[in-house]
C-alpha cells in the first residue's frame, strides 16, 4: 500500500482527501501546516505528498524545496487554488500540479502517475 501525506490547511478539504485516498487504498496521513509536514517527513517519510501551496506558516514551495533536498525519492503533487503557480519555476520540479477542484479524478490520476514513474525509476 503506498503511503501518502496530505498537506492541506483547510480542514474540510483535508478530511475529503483523507477519506477519498484512503478509500482508494492509500495509507493516508494528513497534516495542516508546512512545519508538521517537515516533521512527518523526518520521522515517517511517505512515498508521495499532496502539497497545498498557500499554508499558514511555511509555504508549500518551501516544503517542496526541502523535500527535493532531503528526500528526492518522495513524489510531490502540488495542489493549489492558484493556477498561476503552475508557471512558477519552483513548481516545475514537482511531479505534478493540479488546480483544486471538487472533481478529484485529476488529482488522483496525477498522484498515481507520479508514483508509477517513481517505481519505474527505482
Amino acid at each position, binding site marked *: 500500500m503506498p503511503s501518502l501525506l496530505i498537506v492541506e490547511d*483547510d480542514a*474540510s*478539504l483535508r*478530511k*475529503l*482527501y483523507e*477519506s*477519498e485516498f484512503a478509500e482508494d487504498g492509500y495509507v493516508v496521513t494528513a497534516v495542516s501546516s508546512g512545519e508538521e509536514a517537515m516533521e512527518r517527513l523526518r520521522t515517517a517519510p511517505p512515498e508521495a505528498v499532496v502539497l497545498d501551496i*498557500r499554508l499558514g506558516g511555511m509555504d508549500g514551495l518551501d516544503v517542496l524545496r526541502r523535500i527535493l533536498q532531503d528526500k528526492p525519492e518522495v513524489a510531490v503533487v502540488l495542489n493549489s*487554488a*492558484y*493556477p*498561476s503557480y503552475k*508557471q512558477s519555476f519552483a513548481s516545475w520540479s514537482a511531479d505534478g500540479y493540479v*488546480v*483544486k*477542484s*471538487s*472533481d*478529484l479524478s485529476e488529482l488522483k490520476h496525477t498522484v498515481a502517475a507520479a508514483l508509477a514513474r517513481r517505481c519505474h525509476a527505482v
Partner: protein
Amino acid sequence: MSLLFRLTTVLHGLTDLGAISSALLSTLISEQGLAFDRAVLFLLDDEKKRLRGYDAAGERERALTLDFWRLLDHFPESLSDAVRLTLDPRRRLRSPLSKKARRLAVTLDDPDSPVAEAARSGRVVCPVVQGHPDPEGIVQALGHGPWSFWPVTGTRGVAGVIGVAGGYAHPLPDTVRAPLVMLTHHAGLSLERGRAYQDLERQIAEMATVQEVSRGILSATNLVDLLLLISRVSSRVMEAGWAVTWAAEGPEETLRVASSCGLEDEGGALLDRLRPLAEKCSGTRRSLRRTDAAADGTLPARGDGNPRSILLVPLVAFDRTVGVLGVGDRETSADRDAGVFREADEQFLSILASQAAIAIKNAQLFEQVREAEKRLRETQALLMQTEKLAALGEMSAKVAHEIRTPLSAVGGFARRIRRSLADDDPNAEHATLIVKEIQRLEEILTEQLEFARLSRPRLAMTNLVEVVRETLLLVREEAERQGVAIIEEEEPGLPSLLLDPDRVKQVLLNILKNALGAVVRGNRIFVRTDRAGGDLRVEISNDGAPLPGEILESLFVPFATTKAGGSGLGLAVAHQIVKEHGGEIQVRTGGAWSVSFVISFPIRENQDRRRVPPDRRKGRDRRRAA
C-alpha cells in the same frame, strides 16, 4: 476780393478733397471772386504720370455755390455746416460739366498739352486761344476759351493744374493775375492736405477692414472654411471679380487650388493657365501684378474669360510658404483705373495675405492639436478601462481563491454522498445537482482567474499560425460533437510576432467558444490567418444565428452575458488581451458569414526590440524615417 481772403481761411479748415475743389472753383467763377466764366481742376495722379480732370464749374455752379458764401456771411464760425449744407459732395458727381471734366486725362509728358506743360514747367501757360490745338479736348468738353493754365504747387511740387476761361481779355489784368497766383499757392497746399487726408482715410478704412477681416480669419479654425473665407474676403475688399487660394502641400510644396470665389465651374482652365504664375509667386515669395495680356505676354490674350488683370501674393507664415493668394479682374468703378490693380492694392493684399497665412498655419496646427487630443482621449478611455478591469481582476481573483478551496470540499463531499446512494434513491438526483452546480461555479472561477492573470504578460516570438492550430485542436472535438465543420485557411510565410502565446490562445479560445455557442448542427466555423497591410489578422466567422444589435454593443463589456452559464468575461478578456498587444478586435455582421470576429495584431508594434542594442536601434529608426 474779400471772397478771396475768406477763401484762404476757409481752405485751411477743409479736409475733404471735394469740398476744397468746390470752394476753389466757386471762388474762381463767382461774381464776388475772380468772376471767370469757366474753371477746371486737374489733379496729378499718385504715380505722377497723368493729369486727370477732377472737377469743373461754370454758370450753373456759380449760382449753386453762392449759397455757401452767403451762409458763411451769416454764420462765420459754422464752416462745417456750410460745407455740409451747400457744398453737397455729390454735386461734383452729378454736375454735367464736372462729368465732362472727369473724362479728361493727359499724360504728363505729352508735348502738345498746355495742361501738361503747365504742370511740367511750373509756369502759367497762356493764352490758349481759339483755334489752338486742343489735344485734351478741353475746348470741346468745357467750352471756348481762351483758356489759361495755372500750376497748383504744394510742398511736394506740382499737385495739379487749374484752368480758367472767359471773363477777361488776354493777357489777364494784374488785378486778376496777382490774386490768382496767390490762390494757386493756397490751393496747392489745401489740395495736398486734402489728398493726404483722403489717403489717410483710405488707409484707415483699409486697416479697419484688415483688422475686421483678420479677426474673422484668425477665429476660424476649420481649414476648409478658412480658405473659403480668405477667397471671399479678398475678392470683396479688393473689388475683384474673382479670388483664389492655392495651398502648398507636401515636402515639395506643390500648389493645389484650395478655394476659389467668383469663378465659374471652379475656374478650371483659367486656373491651369495661372498655375505657372502662382508657382513663380510661391517660389520667389514675391507678389506678382499683371495688368494685361499685352503688358508682358505672361497672360493669355484678353477676351473670352481671360483675366484683364491679376494680383498674386505669396502666403508666408513663420518663414514657410503655405500657399498663394490671387485676385483678378478688378471691377471698374468711377474713381479707379479701369480693372487694374495698383501698388497700394498690392500692399494691402500683402497685409491681408500675411494675416491669412498665419491663420492657415494656425488652423493646420489646430487640426493637429485636435487630432492629438482625440488620440489622447481614446488612450485615456482605454487606460481607464484597463485600470478598471485590472482592479476588477484583482478583486475577483482574491474572491475566487478564497472560494475555491471550500468549494472543492463541498463538491468533493457531494460526490462522495452521490456515490454512496443507490441510483434509485431520490437524494441521488439532488446530490448530482449539487455536484453539477459546483462544477459550474468552479468553471466560472477558472475564467475569473484567467481574467486576473491579465496584468502579467509573457512575451515570446510566436508563430501566430501555430497558435491558431493549437487552439483549434482544443475545440475540434467539441465542434465534431456538435456537428459543426471548422474550415481553416492560412496565408503562407507570415512573420513571427512578439506575443504572449498563452493569452492569444485564450483570446482565440474565447472567441471560438463564443462561436460554438452560436452555431447548430450543419453550420460552419471559418478561421483564416493572413496579413492585411501592417497587421496580422485572425478572422473567426460562423454562419450561425446573427447577433442582435444590442448584444453587439455590449459584446466586450465584462459580465454582460446572454449565454446561459457564461460568466460574461470571455470576450471582455479577449478584448483586453488584444488591446494589450496594441491590436484590436472588430466584429462584423451580415454578409457571407453572419458574424465575423477579426483580431488584428500590428506587426511593427509586436517586434522583439531587445535584440537590437539601443544605438543601433536609433540608427535603424532614422533610416526608416528617411
